[in-house]
C-alpha cells in the first residue's frame, strides 16, 4: 500500500469512520503572500471500531489535519468525511467527540458547567446531561474538583476535563489531539485504558501523539505524517520491518575482568558497561553461537540474548528524517 495515494483496502464508505482524500491546506502570510503548504495531498482512512494512531514530528501537519477534520480549518483542496458525512455537516459533528491539543476552556466555569455546555450543544435533555456529566467527571478522576473553576486546574486536570466534555454525547468517533500530553505516567495509563475501553464499546478512536510506545501498545493502525505528507500507513506489524536488525546481548563479566569490554565488543554497537554487566548489540549477520562461546571462554556469564527487530521508533526516525540534499527521491512518499 503506498503512502502517497492509499486506496481503500476493504469495506465501503459506510464502514469508514474517517475518509480523507487528497487533503490540502495552504496558508498565505498576510503581507508577503508567501505560500506555506501545511498539507500536501494527505489520503488515509480509518475503519470503524479501530484505534488509529497519527504520529509525526512537530510541524508535520498532524494538528492541521485534525483541525480540518473538526471543521476548525477549511481545506484548500481535497475531501474529508466523518462517519460517511462531510466534516462540516451537523450529522457528522453530532456523533463525534473532540479533545483539542493543550485544551483551554472557560476560566470561570466548573468542570460540571463545561460538560453541561457541551451537553446543551448536543441537544441533550437536562436530566441526561446531569447524569452523563456526573458519570464522566468521576470516570476521569475529577470528582474531587467539581467546585473548582477551571482556571485553578493543572494541565493534566484540564486534559481530563477536556476528555469528559468530549465524551458527553457518547460519540461514535472520538478524536484526541495529543491526549497524553501533560499527563504523568499514571494519567497516561488512565487515558490509554480509557481509549481501550472506548474500543471495547465499539467506538472509533483517532489520536495524535509523539509517544510512540503508546501507539505501539494500543493502536490497530498507524499513520506517520511528515512535511505535510503521509509517509506510511498500516498496522504497526505491517509498518516495521520483520527483518533481523541485530542481536541484543547482556553478559556478566568475571570480577577479574579489566575495565572496558573484555575484548567482546568487536563489531558490536550500543556497547555499554555498568558495573560488571556488559550490554551490546551484535550485527544481524554475526555468528552468535561463536560469540557466546568466546564470552564463556572469557569467564562471562550470558544473561540475555534477544533478537532485535525494527521498532516503530526506528521507522519513525527513518521516515521523518529530513531528506539528504540532492536526494532525488526526497519528498516522495514511499511504501512501508
Amino acid at each position, binding site marked *: 500500500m503506498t503512502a502517497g495515494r492509499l486506496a481503500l483496502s476493504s469495506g465501503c464508505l459506510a464502514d469508514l469512520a474517517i475518509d480523507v482524500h487528497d487533503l490540502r491546506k495552504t*496558508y498565505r502570510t498576510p503581507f508577503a503572500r508567501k505560500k506555506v503548504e501545511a498539507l500536501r495531498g494527505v489520503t488515509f482512512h480509518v475503519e470503524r471500531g479501530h484505534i488509529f494512531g497519527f504520529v509525526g514530528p512537530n510541524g508535520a501537519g498532524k494538528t*492541521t489535519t485534525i*483541525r480540518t477534520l*473538526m*471543521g*476548525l*480549518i*477549511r481545506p484548500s483542496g481535497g475531501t474529508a468525511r466523518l462517519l460517511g458525512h462531510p466534516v462540516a455537516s*451537523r450529522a457528522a*459533528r*453530532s456523533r*463525534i467527540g*473532540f*479533545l*483539542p491539543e*493543550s*485544551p*483551554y*476552556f*472557560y*476560566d*470561570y*466555569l466548573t468542570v460540571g*458547567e463545561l460538560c453541561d*455546555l*457541551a451537553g*446543551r*450543544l*448536543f*441537544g441533550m435533555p437536562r436530566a441526561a446531561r446531569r447524569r452523563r456529566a456526573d458519570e464522566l467527571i468521576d470516570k476521569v478522576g475529577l470528582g474531587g474538583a467539581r467546585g473548582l*473553576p477551571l482556571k485553578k486546574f493543572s494541565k493534566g486536570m484540564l486534559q481530563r476535563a*477536556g476528555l469528559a*466534555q*468530549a465524551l458527553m454525547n457518547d460519540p461514535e468517533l472520538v478524536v484526541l489531539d495529543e491526549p497524553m500530553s501533560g499527563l504523568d505516567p499514571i494519567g497516561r495509563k488512565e487515558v490509554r485504558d480509557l481509549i481501550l475501553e472506548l474500543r471495547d464499546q465499539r467506538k472509533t478512536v483517532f489520536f495524535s501523539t509523539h509517544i510512540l510506545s503508546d501507539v505501539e501498545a494500543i493502536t490497530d493502525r498507524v499513520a506517520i505524517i511528515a512535511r505535510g505528507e503521509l509517509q506510511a500507513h498500516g498496522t504497526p506489524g505491517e509498518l516495521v520491518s520483520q527483518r533481523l536488525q541485530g542481536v541484543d546481548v547482556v553478559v556478566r563479566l568475571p570480577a577479574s575482568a579489566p575495565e572496558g569490554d573484555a575484548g567482546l565488543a568487536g563489531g558490536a554497537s550500543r556497547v555499554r558497561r555498568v558495573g560488571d554487566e556488559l550490554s551490546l548489540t551484535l550485527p544481524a549477520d554475526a555468528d552468535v553461537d561463536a560469540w557466546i562461546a568466546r564470552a564463556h571462554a572469557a569467564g562471562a556469564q550470558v544473561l540475555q540474548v534477544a533478537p532485535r527487530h525494527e521498532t516503530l521508533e526506528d521507522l519513525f526516525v527513518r521516515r521523518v528524517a529530513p531528506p539528504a540534499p540532492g536526494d532525488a527521491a526526497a519528498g516522495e512518499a514511499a511504501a512501508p
Partner: protein
Amino acid sequence: MIGRIWAIALNTFREAARIRVLYGILVLVLGSNLLAVFVGELSQREADRFARDIGLAGISMFGSLTAIFLGVFLLYTEVQRRTIHAIVCKPISRWEFVVGKFAGMAVVLSVLVGVFAVAMLGMLVWQHTGVSAGVAKAVVLSWLEVITVAAIAIFFSSFSTPFLSGIFALGMWVIGRLTPDLEAATRAAAPWIRITTRVALEIVPDVHLFAVSGRTLDGTAVSVHGDFVPWSYVALAAAHGVGWTVALVAFAALLFHRRDFV
C-alpha cells in the same frame, strides 16, 4: 437552534458575571449616584436635576464603555485562547455561536443597566422626587445605546485585536454621539469636507439619537427635566438601534464564518 444559541449565551453570561472588573464598574456607578446626591444637596433646589443627569450619564457612559470593554474581547479571546476549538466542532453553526455570544453579552449589559437604573431611581425616591415618564424613556434610550455600542464592539472583535477594536469602537461611539455637532461644524466648510463628513457619518450608527436630552428636535427643546420625547420617538430610535445591531452582528458572523481557527 434556540437551544444552542441559549447555551452559548448562558455560558457568556456566566463567564462575564464572574469578571471582577464588572463589580468595580458597578461600585463606580453607585458611587457616582451618591456623589450626585451630595452635590445636589449643596445646590439645594437642583438636587433632583443632579440625580437625574448624573444617573443617566452614568448609565450611558459606563454602560457604553463596559459594552466596548466586554465586546472587544468577546470573539478575539475565544480564538486567541482556543476555547472555541471545543465548541465549533460540536453541532453548532458559527453564526449561532456569534449570536449566542452577543446575546449573552447583551443580557449582562442589560442587567448592568438595570442595576444602574434602579440605583438612580433609588436616589430619586430618596430625594422625594417623582419618577417621570421622561426618566423611564431616557433609561430605555440609554439601554438601546449600550446594546448598539456592544454590537459595534463585537463587529470589530470578529477580525481585529482588542486594542484596535477598542479604538475603532470608541471612535464610532464618539463620532455617532457628536453627529449633530459635526454636521453643524462643517456646514460652512468646503464641499469636499462636507461630503467626506457626511459619508463618514452615514457609516456610523446615530447613537446621538439615544442621548437626546438637552437637544432641539424639530425646533423644540427636549429635556429629561421637562418636556421629553414621545414614546413614538423611542420606538423609532429603537428601530434604528436594532437595525444597526442586526447588521453589525450579521457582519461579525459573516467574517467569523470565513475564518480558520489555527
